C-alpha cells in the first residue's frame, strides 16, 4: 500500500500539486486521471522519487520515502517496476537484453536461469519470437509489453504505469489494460496507472483519483464514476455526445429500466 499525505510540489512560482492525499491499495489498479497539465505525471514522478516533493509524506507500506537514506531508497526502488509512456527501452539492447538487464544488475543467477526467467515474463506478456529483436524493429504495443516484462521481471511489489495506452490503437490498449489488471491481481502488487484513456478508466479502475489543476477533485471506483456529480469529471470522462449517451444508457441499464440490448422494459 502506498499512502500519500498532503503532498505539495511546485516549480518556481507555479504550484503543480497542491495538498494531495491518497491511498493506493495493494492488489488493485489505482488510476490517476486528469487533463494534460493537471499534475498527474508530476504526482507519479514524486511517488517514484524522480521529483522530491516540497512538503508532505509518501509512505510505502508504512515506510516514509522522504526520510529514507540513499541506500534505503535504492533498496526500495528494486521492488518498484515502472512502465514509461514511451516504454524507455534501451535502444542498443535486444528485447531479451532489455528484460534481462535488471536480472544482470541485481541477481547472481546463471545465464540459463536468467534466460528462463526472461522467457517466462515474455510469455506472460504474450510476447514470443521477439527475443532477438531491437526496440526499433517492434511495434508500439510490443514495446509496451516489453516494458511491462522488464518492470515485472524482478517480481516488484509496486508497479507504476505512465500512460500505458498512449499512441496505441483501441484494441491493443485493451490488451495492455487487461494485462496490467491480470498482473496486479496475480502477483498482488500495488499498481498505480497514470492515464487519460476512457476505456482504461472503465475497465481497470478499481480506485480512481481525478486531478484538476494540481488538486484532487474526485476519488472513487469505476462503478461510482458514472454517478459522479462532479461536472469537471463528467466533462473530462464523457467528453463527447456519444459517450454522454452511452453513460445515460448505462445508468438506465444499472437501474434496471432497460435491458442489455437497450430496449425499454
Amino acid at each position: 500500500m502506498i499512502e500519500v499525505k498532503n503532498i505539495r510540489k511546485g516549480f518556481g512560482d507555479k504550484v503543480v500539486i497542491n495538498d494531495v492525499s491518497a491511498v493506493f491499495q495493494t492488489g488493485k489498479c489505482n488510476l490517476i486521471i486528469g487533463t494534460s497539465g493537471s499534475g498527474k505525471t508530476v504526482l507519479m514522478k514524486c511517488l517514484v522519487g524522480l521529483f522530491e516533493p516540497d512538503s508532505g509524506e509518501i509512505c510505502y507500506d508504512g515506510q516514509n520515502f522522504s526520510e529514507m537514506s540513499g541506500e534505503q531508497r535504492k533498496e526500495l526502488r528494486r521492488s518498484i517496476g515502472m512502465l514509461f509512456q514511451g516504454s524507455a527501452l534501451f535502444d542498443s539492447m535486444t528485447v531479451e537484453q532489455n528484460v534481462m538487464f535488471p536480472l544482470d544488475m541485481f541477481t547472481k543467477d546463471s545465464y540459463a536461469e536468467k534466460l528462463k526467467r526472461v522467457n517466462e515474463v515474455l510469455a506472460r506478456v504474450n510476447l514470443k519470437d521477439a527475443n532477438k529483436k531491437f526496440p526499433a524493429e517492434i511495434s508500439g504495443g510490443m514495446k509496451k509489453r516489453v516494458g511491462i516484462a522488464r518492470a515485472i521481471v524482478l517480481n516488484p511489489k509496486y508497479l507504476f504505469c505512465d500512460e500505458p495506452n498512449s499512441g496505441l490503437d483501441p484494441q491493443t490498449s485493451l490488451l495492455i489494460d487487461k494485462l496490467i489488471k491480470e498482473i496486479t491481481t496475480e502477483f498482488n502488487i500495488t499498481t498505480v496507472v497514470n492515464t487519460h484513456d476512457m476505456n482504461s478508466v472503465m475497465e481497470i479502475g478499481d480506485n480512481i483519483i481525478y486531478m484538476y489543476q494540481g488538486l484532487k477533485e474526485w476519488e472513487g471506483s469505476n462503478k461510482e464514476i458514472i454517478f459522479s456529480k462532479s461536472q469537471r469529471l463528467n466533462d473530462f470522462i464523457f467528453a463527447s455526445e456519444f459517450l454522454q449517451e452511452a453513460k445515460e444508457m448505462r445508468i438506465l441499464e444499472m437501474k434496471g429500466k432497460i435491458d442489455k440490448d437497450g430496449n425499454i422494459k
Partner: protein
Amino acid sequence: MSFFTEFGRYLLMLKGMFSRPENGKMYWKEFMHQCSELGIGSLGIVVIISVFMGAVSTLQTAYQLVSPFIPLSTIAQIVRDTVILEFSPTLVCIVLAGVVGSKIASELGNMRVSEQIDALEIMGINTKTYLILPKLLAAIVVIPMLVVISGCLGIWGGRLAGTLTGILSGAAFDKGLHQYFKPYNVFFALAKAYTFAFIISSIPAYYGYYVQGGALEIGRASTRSVVVSCILVLFADYLLAALLLPSAGS
C-alpha cells in the same frame, strides 16, 4: 543559468559518479564497451589526421628553412617536437572533442529525453556512476593511447613526405629524430592527453546528462558541448604549457 550554477552542477555530477557499483561485472562490461567505442571508433580519423599532419609539417618546415647553414636533419627535429608537443595531443584532442564529445552528449541526451535514464534510476541504479564514469575512465585510458599512436604516425607521415618529395633522405630524417631528443616532451604530451581526455569526456557528459526537451535540444547540447570542450582544451593547453615547460613559465 549562471556560470556558477552550471559549474556547481558540473562538480556535483562529478561527485555523484563516485558511489559503490551495484554490480562490478556490469560496470566492467560497460567500461570495456566504452573503451572499444571511443578507441576503435576514433582510430580511423586519428590515423588519417596524424599522417597528414606530420607530412604537412615536413613540407612547411622545409619551405621555411631556406638557409644552407641549417642541416636538413633539423627538419626532422622540428617535425618531431611539434608533433609530440602540440599537434598530437592538442589537434587530435580537438578533433576527438568533436567525434567523441558529440557522441557522448547525444547518447546521454537521447537517453534522458526518451526516459531511459529515469528507467535506470527507478531500478535503483546510480545513473551517474553507470553511464558517465565508464565513459570518463574509458576516455582517460584510451585517448592517451590514441595520442601516442598519433605521435608515431605523425612522425612517420613526416618522414614519408620528406622522402617521397626528395626534401631529405630517410637516413637524414632518422638522424634528426635522434638529435636533442628530450623524453620530458613525451611526459608533457601525456600530461596534456590525460587532461584533455578528462575535458572532452566530462563536459559532453554534463551537457548530455542534463538535457531537457527533445531532438532539437539534444542537437544544441551536442554542439554546445563540442564548443565548450574545444575552448577548454585550448585554455588547458596554454595553462599546461605555462606550468610544465620550464622556459615558457619563466
